[in-house]
């Protein structure tokens, strides 16, 4: 499931936006999304508040330590996870909810700025 030529990196595809993000084995899904220059809604980043909840529709994740008050067992069975705690174990396809409010910080992502 690993990408050729980038050992240890998995590809996360974000729906419905269609963007892809590279995710290392040691970083959380949220950290990978933020590192890519995109922004999604998140809160405490400690697994306690549930704000960064997302749903995986294909692939495997490790949940990490999450409050059972904000991520129920039944939700886990349906693919929901807390992105601030979860790590990718394979390539993933993730469904963002309306609450995630995904956007790319375009003005800081222009190649001319990054290259100079």
């Amino acid at each position, binding site marked *: 499931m690993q990408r050729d030529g980038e050992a240890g990196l998995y590809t996360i595809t974000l729906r419905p936006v269609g963007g892809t993000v590279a995710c290392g084995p040691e970083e959380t899904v949220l950290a990978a999304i933020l590192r890519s220059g995109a922004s999604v809604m998140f809160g405490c*980043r*400690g*697994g*306690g*508040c549930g704000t960064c909840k997302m749903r995986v529709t294909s692939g495997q994740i490790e949940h990490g*330590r999450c*409050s*059972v008050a*904000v991520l129920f067992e039944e939700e886990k069975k349906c693919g929901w996870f807390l992105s601030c705690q979860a790590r990718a174990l394979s390539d993933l396809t993730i469904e963002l909810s309306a609450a995630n409010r995904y956007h790319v910080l375009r003005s800081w992502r222009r190649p001319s700025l990054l290259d100079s």
Partner: protein
Amino acid sequence: MPYRISRLGLVEIRSLDLDRDLDYYLNVLGLQLTAREGKTAYLKGWDERHAYSFALTESDRAGMVRMAFRTVDAEDLDYYEKRLKDFGIRYDIIPEDYRRGRALRFTAPSGHTVELYNEMDYTGNVLPTVNPGPWPEGLRGIAPPRLDHTLVTAPEPGKAIEFFQTVLEFRLSETLVAPDGTIIAAWLWQRPAPHDIAIVPGKPGGFHHAAFVVDSADALFRAADILAMHKARIDYGPGRHGITRGTTIYFFDPSGNRLETFGGYTAYQMDPDSRAIRWTQDQIGPAVFYYSQELNETFLSVYT
């Protein structure tokens, strides 16, 4: 009316991993460890005189276990017991707890477990009681001198605010008011400071934050430096509140509980004759975050 509650004496919150979080509370926040008893650690700021003011208990979730207020005198506990009876509030008597005497425990309309107590072991602060210096050397982390206040959520804040006002005799220092005059949120006090507790709308029993004192602008920026150096999760700040005038940094512990360094050095002192300040709902931005003048995305929605 004399005031009968001397301080917010204890906040107990839940930790998803006590070993990990205790390391954070001792070395980044810089509290003093009184003891670790099983799944609970008892902590305090360096300038607090009683045995502890903050407890962390390992759990499968984050959030608040309880808050406890210390009465000024032992008789004040009897006074409140009579008051709870008069208002028909169900309460339990907790004969003793760790290094603490008798307490009254009840559930506030906000859903929070609240205790009143008077006796707790007087251990003194970390300074000598004879010819002390102004502060101790060798502190770690932010090292706040003491716990200041807590802010909690309630599905019907008006009912919770009224309970704290009428049954427990807290007074309003500041309110956030809807156009129809309804109080949306309130800051309440008994000791002569802007607040011991604040109540805002949200889920029952919700924990928005507990605040520790920083006592100068230097300490505020030093606290921000320490949080950033440890890659702690800063939510907002350094900044200033319109409400209370206090300076602030909001940040999260590793289990996602929000904490604050509260700069009461810029706040005002209450006087027995002080009357409540009113903030209108359309000014909620500067009321909470005076400099940015608008709420961030997390202030109202993210709590444990």
